[in-house]
Protein backbone atom coordinates (compact mmCIF):
# COMPACT_ATOMS: atom_id res chain seq x y z
CA UNK A 1 0.00 0.00 0.00
CA UNK A 2 1.26 3.47 -0.73
CA UNK A 3 0.41 6.42 1.42
CA UNK A 4 0.41 10.04 0.45
CA UNK A 5 3.53 11.63 1.85
CA UNK A 6 1.86 14.99 2.17
CA UNK A 7 -0.78 13.45 4.43
CA UNK A 8 1.87 11.87 6.61
CA UNK A 9 3.79 15.12 6.97
CA UNK A 10 0.62 16.99 7.81
CA UNK A 11 -0.41 14.35 10.31
CA UNK A 12 2.82 14.36 12.25
CA UNK A 13 3.36 18.12 12.12
CA UNK A 14 0.93 18.67 15.00
CA UNK A 15 2.07 18.14 18.61
CA UNK A 16 -1.34 16.81 19.75
CA UNK A 17 -1.32 14.19 17.03
CA UNK A 18 2.22 13.18 17.86
CA UNK A 19 1.20 12.77 21.47
CA UNK A 20 -1.75 10.64 20.39
CA UNK A 21 0.63 8.47 18.42
CA UNK A 22 2.87 8.16 21.46
CA UNK A 23 -0.09 7.04 23.55
CA UNK A 24 -1.23 4.56 20.93
CA UNK A 25 2.28 3.22 20.75
CA UNK A 26 1.70 1.96 24.31
CA UNK A 27 -1.41 0.11 23.16
CA UNK A 28 -4.80 0.52 21.52
CA UNK A 29 -7.27 3.01 22.99
CA UNK A 30 -10.85 4.15 22.45
CA UNK A 31 -11.61 7.74 21.47
CA UNK A 32 -12.90 8.33 25.00
CA UNK A 33 -9.72 7.03 26.62
CA UNK A 34 -7.68 9.21 24.32
CA UNK A 35 -9.83 12.28 25.04
CA UNK A 36 -9.28 11.86 28.76
CA UNK A 37 -5.58 12.47 28.23
CA UNK A 38 -6.06 15.86 26.57
CA UNK A 39 -7.37 19.23 27.60
CA UNK A 40 -9.05 19.77 24.22
CA UNK A 41 -12.68 19.00 23.36
CA UNK A 42 -13.79 15.56 22.21
CA UNK A 43 -14.74 16.85 18.74
CA UNK A 44 -11.23 18.30 18.48
CA UNK A 45 -9.77 14.92 19.44
CA UNK A 46 -12.00 13.28 16.81
CA UNK A 47 -10.75 15.67 14.16
CA UNK A 48 -7.13 14.86 15.01
CA UNK A 49 -7.95 11.15 14.92
CA UNK A 50 -9.54 11.41 11.50
CA UNK A 51 -6.47 13.22 10.15
CA UNK A 52 -4.32 10.43 11.57
CA UNK A 53 -6.63 7.85 10.01
CA UNK A 54 -6.49 9.60 6.62
CA UNK A 55 -2.71 9.44 6.71
CA UNK A 56 -2.82 5.73 7.48
CA UNK A 57 -0.87 6.22 10.72
CA UNK A 58 -3.83 5.19 12.83
CA UNK A 59 -6.35 2.47 12.11
CA UNK A 60 -9.67 1.82 13.81
CA UNK A 61 -11.49 -1.41 14.52
CA UNK A 62 -14.71 -2.32 16.29
CA UNK A 63 -14.86 -4.13 19.62
CA UNK A 64 -18.59 -4.60 20.18
CA UNK A 65 -19.97 -1.10 20.18
CA UNK A 66 -16.59 0.46 20.87
CA UNK A 67 -14.28 1.90 18.25
CA UNK A 68 -10.69 1.17 19.14
CA UNK A 69 -7.72 3.02 17.68
CA UNK A 70 -4.35 1.46 16.90
CA UNK A 71 -1.06 2.88 15.69
CA UNK A 72 0.14 1.75 12.28
CA UNK A 73 3.79 2.68 11.68
CA UNK A 74 3.94 1.49 8.05
CA UNK A 75 3.47 4.95 6.47
CA UNK A 76 6.57 6.19 8.27
CA UNK A 77 8.64 3.76 6.28
CA UNK A 78 7.36 5.51 3.15
CA UNK A 79 9.01 8.66 4.41
CA UNK A 80 12.25 6.79 4.92
CA UNK A 81 12.04 5.15 1.51
CA UNK A 82 11.39 8.45 -0.14
CA UNK A 83 14.38 10.10 1.50
CA UNK A 84 16.46 7.08 0.68
CA UNK A 85 15.58 7.56 -2.98
CA UNK A 86 16.96 11.08 -2.75
CA UNK A 87 20.17 9.75 -1.27
CA UNK A 88 20.55 7.34 -4.17
CA UNK A 89 19.63 10.04 -6.65
CA UNK A 90 22.62 12.14 -5.56
CA UNK A 91 24.94 9.14 -5.34
CA UNK A 92 24.18 8.16 -8.89
CA UNK A 93 24.19 11.72 -10.21
CA UNK A 94 27.53 12.61 -8.67
CA UNK A 95 29.05 9.39 -9.92
CA UNK A 96 27.99 10.30 -13.46
CA UNK A 97 29.42 13.79 -12.93
CA UNK A 98 32.74 12.32 -11.84
CA UNK A 99 32.98 10.07 -14.89
CA UNK A 100 32.03 12.83 -17.31
CA UNK A 101 34.36 15.44 -15.83
CA UNK A 102 37.29 13.02 -15.67
CA UNK A 103 36.74 12.02 -19.26
CA UNK A 104 36.63 15.69 -20.30
CA UNK A 105 39.80 16.37 -18.31
CA UNK A 106 41.64 13.56 -20.06
CA UNK A 107 40.53 14.83 -23.43
CA UNK A 108 41.67 18.36 -22.63
CA UNK A 109 45.07 17.04 -21.56
CA UNK A 110 45.45 15.02 -24.77
CA UNK A 111 44.75 18.11 -26.83
CA UNK A 112 47.49 20.05 -25.08
CA UNK A 113 50.63 17.97 -25.56
CA UNK A 114 53.63 18.84 -23.45
CA UNK A 115 51.79 19.83 -20.32
CA UNK A 116 51.93 16.39 -18.83
CA UNK A 117 54.29 13.43 -18.76
CA UNK A 118 53.01 11.73 -21.89
CA UNK A 119 55.77 10.30 -24.18
Amino acid sequence: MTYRLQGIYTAIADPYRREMMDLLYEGELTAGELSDQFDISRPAVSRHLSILQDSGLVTVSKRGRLRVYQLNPDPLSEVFDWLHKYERFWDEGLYRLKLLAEEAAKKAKAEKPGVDDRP
Partner: protein
Amino acid sequence: MKDIRKRVVIEADIELVWSFVTQSDKIAMWLMPNDFQAKKGHAFTMQCQVKDGSQGHIEAQVLELDPPQWLVYSWLIAEPRLQTQVSIRLSEVRGGTELNLVHSGWEPLGEDPEGLRELHDSIWSQLLGEKLRGLICGGGRS
Protein backbone atom coordinates in the same frame (compact mmCIF):
# COMPACT_ATOMS: atom_id res chain seq x y z
CA MET B 1 15.60 15.16 9.42
CA LYS B 2 19.29 15.50 8.85
CA ASP B 3 20.83 16.92 5.69
CA ILE B 4 21.89 14.72 2.82
CA ARG B 5 25.65 15.15 2.49
CA LYS B 6 27.73 13.82 -0.37
CA ARG B 7 31.41 14.13 -1.13
CA VAL B 8 33.24 13.10 -4.25
CA VAL B 9 36.80 13.65 -5.46
CA ILE B 10 37.09 14.20 -9.18
CA GLU B 11 40.32 13.97 -11.14
CA ALA B 12 39.78 17.17 -13.06
CA ASP B 13 40.64 20.78 -12.39
CA ILE B 14 38.24 23.00 -10.54
CA GLU B 15 37.26 25.14 -13.53
CA LEU B 16 36.22 22.07 -15.48
CA VAL B 17 34.16 20.67 -12.60
CA TRP B 18 32.61 24.10 -12.13
CA SER B 19 31.49 24.04 -15.76
CA PHE B 20 29.71 20.74 -15.10
CA VAL B 21 27.73 22.20 -12.23
CA THR B 22 26.91 25.55 -13.85
CA GLN B 23 26.41 24.98 -17.60
CA SER B 24 22.93 23.90 -18.56
CA ASP B 25 23.96 21.32 -21.18
CA LYS B 26 26.56 19.79 -18.87
CA ILE B 27 24.20 19.68 -15.90
CA ALA B 28 21.74 17.82 -18.11
CA MET B 29 24.35 15.12 -18.70
CA TRP B 30 24.60 14.09 -15.06
CA LEU B 31 21.51 15.50 -13.38
CA MET B 32 18.41 16.49 -15.35
CA PRO B 33 17.36 18.57 -18.36
CA ASN B 34 17.15 22.16 -17.16
CA ASP B 35 17.29 25.84 -18.04
CA PHE B 36 19.92 26.76 -15.47
CA GLN B 37 21.89 29.96 -15.86
CA ALA B 38 24.82 30.90 -13.68
CA LYS B 39 23.24 34.12 -12.46
CA LYS B 40 22.27 34.90 -8.92
CA GLY B 41 18.48 35.06 -8.67
CA HIS B 42 17.88 33.13 -11.88
CA ALA B 43 14.80 30.92 -11.57
CA PHE B 44 14.95 27.63 -13.43
CA THR B 45 13.32 24.24 -13.64
CA MET B 46 14.68 20.73 -13.81
CA GLN B 47 12.67 18.14 -15.68
CA CYS B 48 12.50 14.82 -13.99
CA GLN B 49 11.27 11.51 -15.21
CA VAL B 50 9.09 9.98 -12.54
CA LYS B 51 9.24 6.20 -12.16
CA ASP B 52 5.81 5.62 -13.72
CA GLY B 53 7.00 7.40 -16.89
CA SER B 54 5.25 10.71 -16.26
CA GLN B 55 7.12 14.01 -16.16
CA GLY B 56 7.62 16.01 -13.03
CA HIS B 57 9.68 19.07 -12.47
CA ILE B 58 11.63 20.77 -9.76
CA GLU B 59 11.34 24.52 -9.40
CA ALA B 60 14.63 26.05 -8.43
CA GLN B 61 16.43 29.35 -8.10
CA VAL B 62 20.06 30.32 -7.87
CA LEU B 63 20.58 31.77 -4.40
CA GLU B 64 24.34 32.11 -4.13
CA LEU B 65 27.10 31.97 -6.69
CA ASP B 66 30.83 32.39 -6.19
CA PRO B 67 32.79 30.92 -9.12
CA PRO B 68 34.43 28.51 -9.19
CA GLN B 69 33.76 27.18 -5.72
CA TRP B 70 30.34 27.91 -4.28
CA LEU B 71 26.82 27.43 -5.62
CA VAL B 72 23.50 27.32 -3.77
CA TYR B 73 20.09 26.80 -5.27
CA SER B 74 16.64 26.35 -3.85
CA TRP B 75 14.86 23.15 -4.79
CA LEU B 76 11.10 23.02 -4.44
CA ILE B 77 9.74 19.50 -4.20
CA ALA B 78 6.12 19.18 -5.30
CA GLU B 79 5.01 16.11 -3.34
CA PRO B 80 5.20 16.45 -0.43
CA ARG B 81 5.57 20.18 -0.90
CA LEU B 82 8.92 20.99 0.61
CA GLN B 83 11.25 23.91 -0.01
CA THR B 84 14.72 22.46 0.16
CA GLN B 85 18.17 23.77 -0.68
CA VAL B 86 21.16 22.34 -2.48
CA SER B 87 24.65 23.70 -1.95
CA ILE B 88 27.74 22.65 -3.85
CA ARG B 89 31.25 23.54 -2.73
CA LEU B 90 34.30 22.83 -4.84
CA SER B 91 37.81 22.89 -3.51
CA GLU B 92 41.15 22.12 -5.07
CA VAL B 93 42.85 19.05 -3.70
CA ARG B 94 45.92 17.15 -4.77
CA GLY B 95 45.16 15.50 -8.09
CA GLY B 96 41.83 17.17 -8.67
CA THR B 97 38.77 18.73 -7.14
CA GLU B 98 36.70 17.81 -4.14
CA LEU B 99 32.98 18.36 -4.43
CA ASN B 100 30.80 18.59 -1.34
CA LEU B 101 27.07 18.61 -1.80
CA VAL B 102 24.53 19.29 0.95
CA HIS B 103 20.82 18.90 0.36
CA SER B 104 19.00 20.40 3.32
CA GLY B 105 15.52 21.48 4.36
CA TRP B 106 13.86 18.19 5.12
CA GLU B 107 12.01 19.50 8.12
CA PRO B 108 8.34 19.65 7.20
CA LEU B 109 7.33 23.25 6.73
CA GLY B 110 4.64 25.07 8.66
CA GLU B 111 3.48 24.90 12.20
CA ASP B 112 6.21 22.70 13.56
CA PRO B 113 9.47 22.39 11.67
CA GLU B 114 10.91 20.19 14.41
CA GLY B 115 8.09 17.69 13.95
CA LEU B 116 9.94 14.99 12.11
CA ARG B 117 12.97 15.18 14.32
CA GLU B 118 10.92 14.92 17.49
CA LEU B 119 8.94 12.07 16.06
CA HIS B 120 12.14 10.41 15.07
CA ASP B 121 13.33 10.61 18.64
CA SER B 122 10.13 9.41 20.23
CA ILE B 123 8.76 6.83 17.85
CA TRP B 124 10.75 6.01 14.77
CA SER B 125 13.71 4.51 16.50
CA GLN B 126 11.50 2.40 18.77
CA LEU B 127 9.05 1.23 16.17
CA LEU B 128 11.14 0.81 13.14
CA GLY B 129 14.38 -0.16 14.73
CA GLU B 130 17.85 -0.11 13.37
CA LYS B 131 16.96 -1.43 9.94
CA LEU B 132 15.32 1.73 8.70
CA ARG B 133 17.72 3.90 10.60
CA GLY B 134 20.47 2.17 8.65
CA LEU B 135 18.57 2.73 5.45
CA ILE B 136 18.35 6.46 5.87
CA CYS B 137 21.91 6.73 7.05
CA GLY B 138 22.91 5.15 3.76
CA GLY B 139 24.26 1.96 5.31
CA GLY B 140 21.37 -0.43 4.85
CA ARG B 141 23.32 -3.53 5.71
CA SER B 142 25.39 -2.36 8.62
